[in-house]
């Protein structure tokens, strides 16, 4: 986002708009000057979000139904987005799946699904958007990865590796687009209470999507490269990354 100035008209494109974190973020960004292009795979859910944003007085809302994990359709999806807006001030990517690591070990179709949904397809979509941002020479790209991408852990290294790969991709993209004045933000949330994590028992380390959304807005405003949300995860991950393998292997993390 070049600016969070409420008086400037800006277009926010969201890939994975039905995600709980995206919903919170969209609501917080919504004002009479924001135009939204929302992409997701669930038409009814997108329509409900659209109604909500109309009541919140968004300037305009366009919705696109697409399976974002389908890499072969990435070009088509991006064309559909660009047919609905002349410029992208913020591209926000929030879709993803957690998957079940243990199940995936039994069936590599699941492994492929996890990697494709969280990494390959995102990389394809970002590559389609890159020339657009090159030309624009302005704007921001914010993508949700995860703290799970910082260190491979026995319980979810398939998801973790996809998110870790995505973080590396974003680091390179940030480097590439820096000369065009385009800001790329890597978002690394910790535990967030959303549909993705409904099977987990919640405790002190858990945050609400609203809190994460506020953190994302702040990081965009400050033009940060990468942000842990909530911020304390930075320290947790420093420690987790420092633990030697001999000790790490004794944990069930």
């Amino acid at each position, binding site marked *: 986002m070049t600016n969070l100035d409420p008086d400037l008209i800006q277009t926010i494109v969201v890939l994975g708009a039905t995600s*709980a974190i995206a*919903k*919170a973020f969209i609501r917080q960004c919504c004002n009479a000057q924001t135009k939204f292009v929302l992409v997701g795979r*669930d038409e*009814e859910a997108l329509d*409900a*979000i659209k*109604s*909500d944003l109309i*009541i*919140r007085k968004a300037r305009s809302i366009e919705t696109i139904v697409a399976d974002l994990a389908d890499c072969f359709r990435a070009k088509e999806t991006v064309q559909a987005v660009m047919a609905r807006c002349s410029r992208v001030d913020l591209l926000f990517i929030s879709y993803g799946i957690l998957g079940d690591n243990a199940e995936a070990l039994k069936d590599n179709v699941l492994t492929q699904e996890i990697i494709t949904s969280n990494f390959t397809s995102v990389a394809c979509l970002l590559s389609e958007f890159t020339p657009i941002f090159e030309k624009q020479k302005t704007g921001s790209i914010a993508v949700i990865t995860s703290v799970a991408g910082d260190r491979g852990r026995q319980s979810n290294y398939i998801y973790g590796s996809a998110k870790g790969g995505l973080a590396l991709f974003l680091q390179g993209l940030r480097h590439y687009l820096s000369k065009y004045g385009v800001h790329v933000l890597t978002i690394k949330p910790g535990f967030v*209470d*959303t*549909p993705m994590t*409904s*099977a*987990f*028992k*919640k*405790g*002190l380390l*858990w945050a*609400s*999507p*609203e*809190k994460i959304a506020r953190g994302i807005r702040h990081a965009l405003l400050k033009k940060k490269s990468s942000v842990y949300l909530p911020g304390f995860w930075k320290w947790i991950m420093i420690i987790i990354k420092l633990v030697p393998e001999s000790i790490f292997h004794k944990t069930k993390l």
Partner: protein
Amino acid sequence: MVVMYRNSTIPTGAMTPMWTSWGRLLSIETPQHPFRKKPFLSTNGTILATGNLKSYGDSCLLSNGTAFSMLFQDNILAWNPQSGRLKVEAGVLLDHILQNFVPEGWFLPVTPGTKYVSVGGAVANDIHGKNHHRVGTFGHFITSLKLLRSNGEAIVCSPSANSNLFQATIGGLGLTGIIDWVEIQLIPIKSSLMDVEWLRFEGIPEFLELNTASSHYDYTVSWLDCTSSKKGKASAKGIYIRGRHHPDPSCLSIHKKPYLKIPFNFPDLTLNKYTIGMFNKLYYHHFPKHKKGTQHYDPFFYPLDQLIDWNLIYGKRGLYQFQCVIPFKHSLSTFQTMLDIIAASGQASFLSVLKSFGSIPSIGLLSFPEEGLTLCLDFANQGIKTLTLLKQLDELVLAARGRRYPAKDATMTRNQFKQFYPNWNTFLAYKDPKISSDFWERVSPQ
């Protein structure tokens, strides 16, 4: 904004998935699923929709089956600022409605003692508020709702269309289908302030006098010190509270976030008859005989919301709530006997509330409110001792032809249910065959 409270009912501790109701008497070990239409329709076995789990007993629990949490269904679907008609997805919390519409000069037509309940939950228990004597229940302000049945049907019901299903769904304990969205009528306000009066009373007869004299106030409720009652005498002390929305235009500010959180279970018996007696005396004497003032709507309607997870004060064994309504002609003698029995049991209710329900008939087949006096009590769970007390109280309710509130119940029997809710037979025809709850398994007439 809202999500932090969502899981506040889940006790911290072991890393197994666990959720429970506000009374925390029973934990469910299988996770809740976020509601989506497809998995809902393809699930085998029993299902239940859950809201914000603020019911005390087991009407929002399902031990054997799949529970779908509605809380992520939280969009506002339509709003008419001229008429005050609001259409929301069922997972929207009342808190969310206040945040968005108080600044525009609109308020909830009926509200319970906490704003952290979902609209779906408010429908399913046909909730009542301090204005029951004037306006009836939440159900009276529902203009239409959409129900998703497990056979794939989606049915819009209203007082005029599919009205039988509408009546079964209001107060229908979530058993007639999943409530997708609800359209309600908000009421206009000019200020977020309330004009309030607090009056001390001694004995239920004095309460009744005050109550008659206050019937033109929009909101009335009483706090009761059940430890102050002397045997055989209707002498319990209390504070009568009556109020109305401040009629002149002034600020339309919304409530603040709660600032205190109970971090862990208090030791068992933190709340005993001595600490409760002491607290109640202090509270009673905090008020002069008659006090007037203005107050924001938040402390007026939701005093307990300031304290997140206040149910942990009752200890790790949780608490039983008891709310009944007794027709006016029996209420005085019944409540006096109840207070005597409670005193004799050596247990005490920390928060006791007394209120009159008016004569407007409830819409729902299983709606709780009916004309009479309602008494709400809570007891820390002391096992068999508490169950024995509740049994005695239940017998009194039956004898007085009253009824208990399922949202605050964990002990009602099949037989009692039939007697409390004589419409049960008509209701069965509208129940969704795939939906059930622990409450329903316990009381369903077979």
